[in-house]
């Protein structure tokens, strides 16, 4: 029992046995690959196929309705192998042996060795360079900006090497029968394998059960998908990795400000100055830089390396992985060293307080701050904190203001200065060195929103916490500028800090209460007056 296929040659339908079909297919493509001129080739192939159909038609009768191997062999005997054809192709061989070899090389895209379109491998074959280097060039060019365009143009311009003759031309091998035969053999083998995978799956029952075939088809589909996915992922890795590496290098060793990107867009800015304000000396800074580079940079380089492996199927030596691990260990040790040193620097914390008593001359005091920029050059700016330097001075926006009830009838302002340091003494010195002054102008209390210290003191968690103590019935107005300054101000209605600004507040028994709120629960000025009067009466009676 033999499997047959139905084929159509020159419009005539034949039943052909599978092995005969394969032999015929190989034979016809051998002839096809023998002709270089593509226009002529199509026509010649049609003529030859017509003749094949004629021979097959002659061979058929009532008894023999199926084309078998013998018929194909007969066709081959009649039509002959292309080597026997007395055509110009054969004639050219002797003349192209040496000097024409180079000229005969033609630029083709290589469909057998490609990542995207086979441009790099085709170019590599043409200029005689290993494909890996051409690909590396394209990757480099991609990041310099002109890579994509160049590649697309080349992709469009370069034809794909479809036939065996074209593939030989691409590699610059002389096109003679021997080489074609050689190239064709591997091609035929590939075709054969494909036929086995595809045709037998479809037509043959001996290849296995239907289920098995389906599983195999699904498996090969997923392999293909994963291959494509791997390439895409590889390109993404390469892109992300390189970007991260550039950013990291600039961040660590660049002198200009670096932008980092968050959900809110570009918001954080840091420069080398910032790191100098943290580390005790330059050495520590460089050690930390190297540590960060190792801990972040090595994985990033690993990512780039991985992407190159995914894209180009380059095999790596096991020492590469070991080196990566080793560098990570070194990075960890460095971080530990610098970290401990910094931790010691920050180990102690001290604070001291200044208190000022204010006579409650005014019904309502206005609490204000500056809404202008920080002085000098910013070294770290983001939504919450800001550090800048000007000359020897360093300014930090670590000032907080709170409002509380006074324990007596006087109004007070306490300013708490605190700082970290390597010893309590050092910490106290740093706290005392904080330069922060508020001003009182009539009924206006002005609190700067930044503190100043000498640059020498470094960033050691210096902080100023102001508490305004209000006696009963004293009211204040929180200016809108204090939005970022006030911190967790207790009030009766539990109103959120940001919503407290721009409003008048009064200190009552129950706590700070809003005086002019419409949308949130508060009391009106009228009610306050009544309340005051009542309380006054009570105190008089007592």
């Amino acid at each position: 029992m033999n499997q047959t296929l139905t084929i159509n040659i020159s419009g005539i339908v034949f039943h052909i046995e599978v092995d005969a079909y394969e032999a015929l297919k190989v034979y016809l493509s051998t002839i096809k690959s023998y002709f270089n001129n593509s226009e002529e080739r199509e026509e010649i192939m049609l003529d030859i196929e017509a003749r094949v159909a004629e021979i097959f038609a002659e061979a058929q009768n009532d008894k023999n309705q199926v084309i078998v191997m013998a018929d194909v062999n007969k066709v081959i005997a009649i039509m002959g192998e292309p080597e026997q054809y007395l055509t110009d192709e054969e004639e050219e061989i002797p003349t192209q042996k040496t000097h024409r070899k180079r000229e005969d090389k033609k630029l083709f895209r290589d469909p057998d060795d490609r990542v995207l379109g086979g441009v790099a491998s085709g170019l590599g074959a043409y200029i005689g360079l290993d494909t890996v280097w051409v690909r590396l060039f394209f990757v480099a060019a991609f990041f310099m900006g002109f890579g994509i365009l160049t590649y697309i143009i080349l992709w469009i311009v370069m034809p794909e090497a479809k036939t065996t003759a074209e593939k030989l031309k691409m590699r610059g091998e002389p096109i003679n029968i021997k080489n074609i035969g050689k190239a064709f053999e591997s091609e035929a083998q590939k075709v054969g394998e494909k036929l086995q995978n595809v045709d037998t799956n479809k037509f043959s029952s001996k290849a296995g059960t239907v289920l098995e075939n389906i599983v195999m088809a699904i498996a090969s589909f997923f392999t293909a998908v994963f291959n494509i996915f791997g390439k895409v992922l590889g390109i993404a890795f390469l892109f992300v990795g390189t970007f991260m590496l550039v950013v990291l290098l600039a961040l660590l060793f660049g002198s200009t400000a670096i932008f980092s990107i968050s959900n809110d867009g570009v918001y954080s800015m840091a420069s080398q100055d910032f790191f100098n304000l943290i580390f005790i000396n330059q050495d520590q800074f460089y050690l930390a830089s190297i540590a960060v580079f190792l801990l972040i940079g090595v994985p990033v380089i690993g990512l780039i390396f991985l992407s190159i492996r995914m894209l180009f199927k380059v095999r790596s030596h096991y020492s590469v992985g070991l080196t990566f691990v080793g560098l990570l260990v070194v990075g960890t040790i460095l971080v530990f060293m610098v970290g401990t040193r910094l931790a010691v620097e920050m180990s102690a914390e001290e604070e001291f307080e200044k208190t000022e008593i204010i006579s409650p001359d005014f019904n309502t005091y206005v609490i204000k701050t500056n809404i202008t920029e920080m002085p000098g050059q910013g070294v770290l700016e983001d939504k919450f904190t800001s550090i800048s330097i000007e000359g020897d001075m360093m300014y930090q926006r670590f000032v907080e203001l709170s409002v509380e009830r006074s324990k007596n009838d006087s109004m007070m302002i306490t300013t708490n200065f605190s700082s970290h340091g390597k010893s309590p003494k050092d910490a106290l010195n740093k706290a005392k060195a904080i330069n922060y002054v508020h001003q009182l102008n009539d009924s206006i209390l002005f609190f700067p929103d930044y503190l100043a210290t000498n640059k020498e003191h470094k960033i050691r968690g210096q902080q100023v916490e102001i508490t305004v103590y209000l006696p009963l019935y004293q009211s204040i107005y929180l200016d809108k500028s204090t939005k970022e300054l006030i911190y967790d101000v207790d009030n009766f209605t539990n109103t959120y800090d940001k919503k407290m600004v721009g409003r008048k507040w009064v200190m009552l028994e129950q706590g700070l209460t809003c005086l002019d709120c419409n949308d949130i629960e508060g009391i009106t000025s009228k009610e306050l007056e009544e309340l005051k009067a009542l309380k006054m009466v009570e105190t008089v009676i007592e």
Partner: protein
Amino acid sequence: MNIENTQAQMRKGVLEYCILSILNNGEAYPSEIIEQLKQGKLIVVEGTLYPLLTRLKNAELLSYRWEESTSGPPRKYYQLTDKGKKFLEELATTWDDLVAAVEITRKPTKK
């Protein structure tokens, strides 16, 4: 020197002339041409003919018309064009010259 190669080269040169000559006697389709060529042992395999016919046709020396066949696909019947006839005449002259030249060289030279 390879004797087979030289023979093939000689045959090849004559082949085009012969095809044109056959068609000069009237139009024919490839199998008929092949039959005649095989008789003269000019070609061994049929595959040789198709590229040659296509090239001669592309050189406008031949033209063809389709004719239905009872035993297979439609056939291409080739015939000489005017250009082909002129080409054949020139080839004929060259052939005569060649034959004469060959004859002269084969005769022992008179001293």
